[in-house]
């Protein structure tokens, strides 16, 4: 019961306020391999210190957007926070200073105490390579081994370009490194794609040179406790070219690899695949099963049944697979988008006017497709989910539609955003940005999510256009089954951020 306070603003307060204004350097989400958000971080520059140093603040929010920590960090003025992950035991932040010859990995325990500070050697060229790979979605810098440790992935400049995979334990285990051979004359990159308390599964990609368009894939399986190679399997262009998109470790520790398979000699980036595959191997490298589903025999027929208006459009277009989900009952869903290469009328005109300098071709992206497979990877069904057409111009260098699709995917041109897997409820959520052409109404952008549970699909939609014209809306990944909606009112200069659960009503009673 006090005198009611009144807001006081004075010149002095403004001066103090200017002295305490902080610059936001980086921000990001702490996301695990199921695309579940564990939290968020904001990296601010706070104070200027001597010898080119700065005091920074790492502000952390939990998955419900509650502020949980604000940690001080001192480093060089040019440092940036590149990536961060949480493995249920500890939180790792990776820092990069362009002027230094290393990355720094700082690890906090669950009491927010700094417990490890590790330097990983990396020169300017190596860092540039790594940035490019991350920007294109080809590599994760940090991969979590839940409740055990972290894998730190970096590029090593040896005779060509190679990789280093550093394992940092958080459970008292042993650190180890697994690096590409130093004497090879090829470019090698690695990306961990799955791990449990026993093994790490990584995808190694090899090409002869920077300009080479031919890539071979190899699966590498390592013992997570010591980094020892348990086995590897080559998917060379010559013998068995395959484009691996997903890997799962089953309860019996057998490994399931999923993706697209090709004709021997084909280029996995340029040529059309023959279909989808699911290969099961034990941890000794013995192949237990290799199921294939071809476009010609199986998928085309199912697509025609699923979409009667299709009129055998399969022969006129392609499907770009973004993800393959494995359900608790062992069945699978492959999530893709239909696309085809078309001519852009506007682009063609520009090309003619500019004497060949414009882009006349484009990728037209249409419906989403969900293929259902049983646990033996036999194709059961396909669901076509209609959405609006998107058209993305393709640079002239990408002559083939498949290569163009990979390029479009790398720049985020597809409507597909991400898929989250809820293992507890045996659900998955796949999100797309859709441009809806609505009869009798203005066209609208929407953030559309498809949910699957118990064999059924449901859809939820959040329009990105708001009734208030001065409000700009973004929808970002949130924790499982949620999104973060950010509404910025340009007129009021206010920002409203709230976490919302996605809505699905498909008979969830009892």
């Amino acid at each position, binding site marked *: *019961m006090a005198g009611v306070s009144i807001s*006081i603003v*004075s010149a002095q307060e403004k001066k103090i306020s200017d002295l305490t204004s902080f610059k936001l350097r980086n921000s990001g989400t702490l996301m695990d391999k199921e695309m579940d958000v564990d939290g968020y971080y904001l990296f601010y520059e706070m104070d200027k210190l001597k010898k080119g140093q700065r005091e920074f603040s790492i502000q952390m929010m939990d998955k419900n957007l*509650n502020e949980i920590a*604000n940690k001080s960090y001192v480093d060089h003025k040019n440092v940036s926070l590149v990536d961060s992950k949480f493995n249920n035991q500890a939180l790792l932040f990776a820092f990069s200073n362009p002027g230094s010859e290393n990355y720094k990995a700082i690890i906090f325990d669950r009491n927010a105490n700094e417990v490890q500070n590790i330097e990983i050697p990396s020169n300017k060229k190596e860092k540039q390579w790594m940035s490019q790979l991350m920007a294109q979605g080809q590599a994760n810098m940090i991969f979590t081994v839940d409740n055990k440790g972290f894998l730190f992935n970096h590029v090593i400049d040896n005779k060509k370009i190679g990789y280093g995979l550093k394992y940092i334990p958080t459970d008292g285990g042993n650190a180890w490194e697994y690096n590409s051979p130093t004497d090879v004359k090829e470019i090698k990159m690695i990306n961990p794609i799955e791990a449990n308390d026993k093994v790490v599964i990584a995808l190694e990609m090899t090409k002869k040179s920077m300009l080479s368009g031919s890539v071979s894939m190899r699966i590498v399986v390592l013992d997570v406790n010591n980094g020892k190679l348990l086995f590897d399997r080559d998917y060379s262009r010559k013998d068995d070219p395959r484009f691996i998109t997903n890997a799962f470790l089953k309860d019996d520790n057998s490994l399931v690899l999923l993706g697209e398979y090709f004709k021997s000699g084909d280029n996995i980036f340029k040529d059309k695949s023959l279909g989808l595959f699911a290969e099961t191997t034990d941890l000794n490298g013995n192949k237990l099963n290799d199921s294939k589903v071809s476009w010609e025999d199986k998928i085309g027929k199912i697509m025609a049944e699923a979409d009667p208006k299709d009129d055998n459009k399969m022969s006129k277009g392609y499907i770009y697979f973004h993800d393959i989900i494995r359900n608790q009952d062992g069945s699978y869903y492959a999530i893709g988008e239909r696309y085809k290469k078309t001519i852009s009328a506007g682009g063609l005109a520009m090309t003619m006017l500019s004497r060949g300098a414009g882009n006349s071709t484009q990728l037209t992206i249409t419906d989403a497709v969900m293929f259902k497979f049983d646990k033996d990877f036999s194709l059961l069904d396909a669901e076509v989910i209609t959405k609006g057409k998107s058209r993305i111009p393709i640079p002239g260098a990408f002559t083939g539609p498949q290569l163009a699709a990979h390029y479009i995917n790398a720049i985020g041109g597809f409507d597909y955003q991400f898929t989250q897997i809820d293992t507890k409820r045996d659900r998955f959520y796949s999100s797309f940005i859709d441009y809806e052409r609505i009869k009798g109404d203005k066209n609208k952008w929407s953030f559309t999510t498809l949910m699957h549970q118990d064999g059924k699909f449901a859809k939820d939609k959040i329009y990105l256009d708001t009734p208030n014209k001065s409000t700009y809306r973004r929808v970002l990944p949130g924790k499982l089954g949620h999104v973060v909606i950010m509404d910025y009112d340009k007129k009021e200069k206010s920002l409203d951020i709230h976490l919302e659960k996605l809505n699905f*009503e498909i008979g969830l009673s009892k």
Partner: protein
Amino acid sequence: MNKTCFLSFFAFFISFFALAQNSSDNVYIPENFNSIKKYLSIINEKQLKKVEGPYASKIKKIYKDRDVKMTEAIEDSVYFFNPILKENLDAILQSVYIASDAYIEHNDFYFFVKNSTLPNAGCYGDGSYEISLGLFNLYDTDDELAFVICHEIAHDILDHSFRKINNTVSELNSKETKQKIKTIERNKYGQTRASLALINELNTDFLSHSKEVESQADSLGFVLFQKTRYNPVKALTALRKLKTEEDRFFNFPIHLDSVFNFKTYPFKSFWLEEEMTIFNTEEKIDDFKMSSEDEETHPEIDFRIKQLEEQFTIVDNQQSENNYLKSISEISISQSIVSSIDSNLFDLAIYQLIRKYNLGFITEEFYVSAMATVLTKVYKAKKNHELGSYVPRKNGFSSESELNKIRLFLHNLELGEVRNIGIAFCQKYLGENYQNQTINQSLTFFKL
């Protein structure tokens, strides 16, 4: 609670609630809004004329447009206007004014009732005051409320509000502070830390005066209170209740698993499932925290009680009155709930409904109507992806444990589960010995 008295308000509650649903703006915008606007303008003008001294122009800027801001607050439904409540409140106010007529110039006084469940009262220093609905719900006697009124009037007599602003402006503009800012600006390094230290120092200074100020208002307030017919010992009761309320508020056990457990739709334990957090800490880790953030904005109640007991001989005359507060409380109990619903504060609304129903402060019919309305609104908010704008997420650092449970529950529910709960809830109470339009409407809504 007297049954006859309660029944006499029964019809009022129902009609009030129905009215509130159809035109809830009526209770938030006073009928005499224009004259209130005029009043606010007049007292603001008077306040501005009183300002003088070396920082007069800066202080006038602060007071300028305060009447406009108050008007906007009224239009934003911050306050509650009810003629019966006002009549009863005025009766207590008159007792205070009459007893201390020589000391209080009350012609310009106006007490606004704030739509807040937190027990609080305040003095703006220009003749306008606020008392929250939560404060009316806290007390049992006219005496306790009268002491709070005397305390706030004491703030006015002692000119605390103006002095606080004056002191703050003076300190911010003092040579010393200006010099400190200049020194910081000249520093090449560590400007931010130095600025934060200065802010901390200023905050600590501002907050440390609060304790003295409250104690002064307690003392002068008690002097005014002693002149009334009310029981002096109730001054201490009023303060003690504030302390216990701080401890107990939002911590009344709610038992959602029985409230929302129905034969046709049993409660699911995963609706209260918590998630793992990144850090296992009891409070936010903040390497930049200022020590002034730990200072209380309300000085310790024990200190204030002790001060009063040392300064005065407080005798219990064994009497107390409840002529007017009872009527005020009955209105404020339901209005707290209604305003929470109107403001889409669903967590607060559910908490109050369950608590007040369990304690017998509201009838079953009111409880059922209001809860059906809340469930309908929760469904709509979820459908429109707006629930997060109205109901905060559970915060592990907050001591509002029961309120946090409700927040967790509301956010964990799927849309279809809200619908099923709505149907089960309405079906349970349909066919009771009262006609309830709201239940029927809600059931129809959920079944569509």
